[in-house]
């Protein structure tokens, strides 16, 4: 009996000891993650390709501020939002000083949690406002003040296979409107048998979003009203439908299938953000030298050819105890040319416009048939219209994809599908 009690209590004690030492050493390491402002240390959350940029910036910042220390916690992109939402729900607990948030999410957080992020205009960031495109600064503004630092952008273009275009006798320079694009697609299909582009018709509406932005609007108009039944929406959807009906679309379900279609040479083009270049160069190594880029076709001759897809921004959390230091570092990070050029090396397209004259932008890129593609993307930046993502972006996107799927499967006409989607969305927003 005694023996047993002895054994049990020994076990219990072991557990307690183990538990205690595990929480001991971890809490000392973990304190930084809770942003308790221990002197000169700043913590940041970001996902993979952004980490080297932050670290490089920290190294440079340290030259002036020797005590400064940056801890980057590497997270998956979606995981950042899970943690950020949980933290904000509980009043900022466990949040770091700096967080990377994408364009399409940031307004949602600013609306749902108005006090979540630090007003950077108050701290003097307005001085640097002109160094960024308006669509970015407006995205981060609320009541005339900015709540974040613009970082990378996704100026759009059509990535295309130069060899297929040549084989079909199509000149990329002649594609000026979406109608030209569809005509070219037909020629390429006849000559090479390849689809013009891959789209996830039932799962993503990226092309529709690019087309909406291109026309200066989005799921929501300037007054934040649902915009599905607008003329712009109809035009965009019509073009996508025409592509589908002309047999130019390869249905690629999900991101991997889309990239895979490019790697295997099954599609001739991919309209997307500048960041796609990174994926193509990495995943489709065999096709080096057979790619080029032209700007998104316009809706009418001489119409706007600039648009945006994706991009991200840094914010400072109000829960941070080290806001001033975090601000100083982020201001340095955002406006330092050398730091932003490091971003280029990691496949990110900086929105800081003071660096566009740099050699990194004017150089010819061998993967893309020696075309200076970065120059092309940079030239779009000032023409990208600002649009309203609002806090309802996620559910709007959901409804938009449903509508697109109904149209492409021939279940409903464009008008019917978007009217229904608009009604459903209004119902969900209340």
């Amino acid at each position, binding site marked *: 009996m005694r023996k047993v009690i002895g054994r049990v209590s020994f*076990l219990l004690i072991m557990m307690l000891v183990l538990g205690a030492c*595990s929480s001991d050493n971890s*809490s000392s390491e973990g304190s930084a993650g809770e942003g308790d402002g221990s002197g000169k240390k700043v913590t940041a959350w970001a996902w993979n390709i952004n980490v080297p940029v932050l670290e490089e910036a920290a190294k440079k910042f340290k030259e002036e501020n020797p005590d400064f220390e940056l801890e980057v916690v590497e997270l998956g992109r979606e995981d950042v939002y899970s943690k950020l939402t*949980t933290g904000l729900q509980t009043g900022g607990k*466990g949040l770091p000083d700096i967080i990377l948030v994408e364009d399409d999410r940031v307004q949602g957080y600013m609306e749902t949690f108005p006090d979540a992020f630090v007003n950077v205009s108050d701290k003097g960031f307005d001085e640097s406002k002109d160094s960024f495109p308006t669509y970015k600064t407006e995205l981060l503004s609320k009541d005339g003040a900015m709540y974040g630092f613009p970082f990378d952008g996704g100026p759009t273009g059509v990535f295309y296979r130069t060899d297929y275009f040549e084989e079909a006798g199509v000149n990329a320079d002649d594609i000026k409107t979406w109608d030209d694009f569809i005509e070219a697609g037909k020629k390429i299909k006849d000559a090479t048998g390849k689809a013009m582009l891959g789209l996830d018709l039932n799962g993503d509406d990226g092309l529709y979003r690019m087309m909406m932005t291109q026309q200066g609007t989005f799921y929501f108009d300037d007054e934040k009203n649902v915009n599905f039944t607008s003329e712009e929406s109809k035009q965009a959807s019509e073009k996508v439908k025409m592509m589908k009906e002309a047999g130019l679309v390869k249905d690629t379900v999900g991101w991997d299938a889309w990239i895979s279609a490019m*790697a*295997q040479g099954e599609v001739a083009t991919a309209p997307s953000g500048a*960041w796609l270049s990174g994926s193509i160069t990495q995943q*489709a190594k065999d096709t080096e030298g057979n790619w080029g880029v032209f700007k998104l076709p316009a809706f009418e001759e001489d119409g706007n050819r600039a648009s945006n897809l994706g991009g991200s921004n840094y914010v400072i959390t109000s829960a941070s105890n080290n806001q001033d230091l975090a601000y100083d570092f982020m201001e340095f990070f955002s406006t330092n040319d050398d730091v932003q050029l490091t971003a280029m090396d990691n496949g990110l397209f900086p929105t800081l416009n003071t660096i566009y004259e740099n050699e990194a932008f004017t150089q010819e890129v061998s993967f893309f048939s020696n075309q200076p593609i970065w120059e092309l993307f940079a030239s779009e930046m000032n023409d990208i219209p600002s649009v309203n993502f609002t806090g309802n972006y996620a559910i709007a996107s959901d409804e938009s994809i449903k509508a697109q799927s109904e149209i492409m499967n021939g279940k409903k006409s464009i008008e019917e599908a978007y009217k229904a989607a608009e009604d459903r969305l209004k119902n969900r927003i209340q």
Partner: protein
Amino acid sequence: MAKNLDVIEQTTNELTLAERQQKKPKRKKKKLKAVWMYTLLSIFLVVSIFPFYWMFIGATNDSSKMFTNPPTLLPGDQFMTNLTNLNESIGIFRVLFNSLFVSGLYVVIALAVCASAAYVLAKYNFKGKKFIFTAFLLSMMIPYQATLIPLFQMMSDFNLLNTYFAVIAPQLCFPFAIFLLRQNFLAFPTELMESARLDGASETRIFISIVIPSMRPALAAASIFLFMTQWNNFMWPLVVLNTNDMYTFPVALSSLMGLSYIDYGQVMMGVTLATVPIIAFFLTLQKQFISGMLGSALK
């Protein structure tokens, strides 16, 4: 897991076939049937093993090979490269240690908690017993999303964020394990307990020296289940852990998923490594596990 189920399925099939053959000596027809049976089983075998094989292919090849047509079906020579890259990205040893430590500790404590709870619910009579048991079962219906934020708030109030303890604490009392163990404890002969009592054994002693040893198979089954639950646990560790050196395997793997560029070589290598301990754990307890299943079947 699926693989082992196949094995069990196969053995039971063999048994029934043998039995039938004894009864009806229509051998030819039976043989033909067996051929069909084995063809079908082989198909299932391939279907269940192929994902693992594909994972291994991915782990030994360059990321771009995942997208070629026709697909790469042979192991490549990038095993070491992927391993080194993965180690640079997430620090394999630290992450493996975290996961093993958290899961191991969890199994030990949770098993102790759940077994005691199950024993009481199975073998003692007291007021409110049914209510407590129903409450346990009903709590299985609460989705974890609903408890995520309150639990996070609690951990933060206790100052436990970013600790191993925070990872395992909320699930220590695991309703399904309690249910599983209770059903098994019910089958334990009460007479044995009574005679032990007559011999002067205390209640604790009965539980530890008499009931527990004969319940090994059930405990093995429960611990495999608990281990897997904790090993694969993603959302909760993600939310409570705040530094890369505290990450468990699933959380660290997820940090490889960025925006546009994902190195599948690293991801597949990581998944391969994450599968090994589960297989090892299962193989160690397999004997107990299967003898438990057969044992209860023969009763």
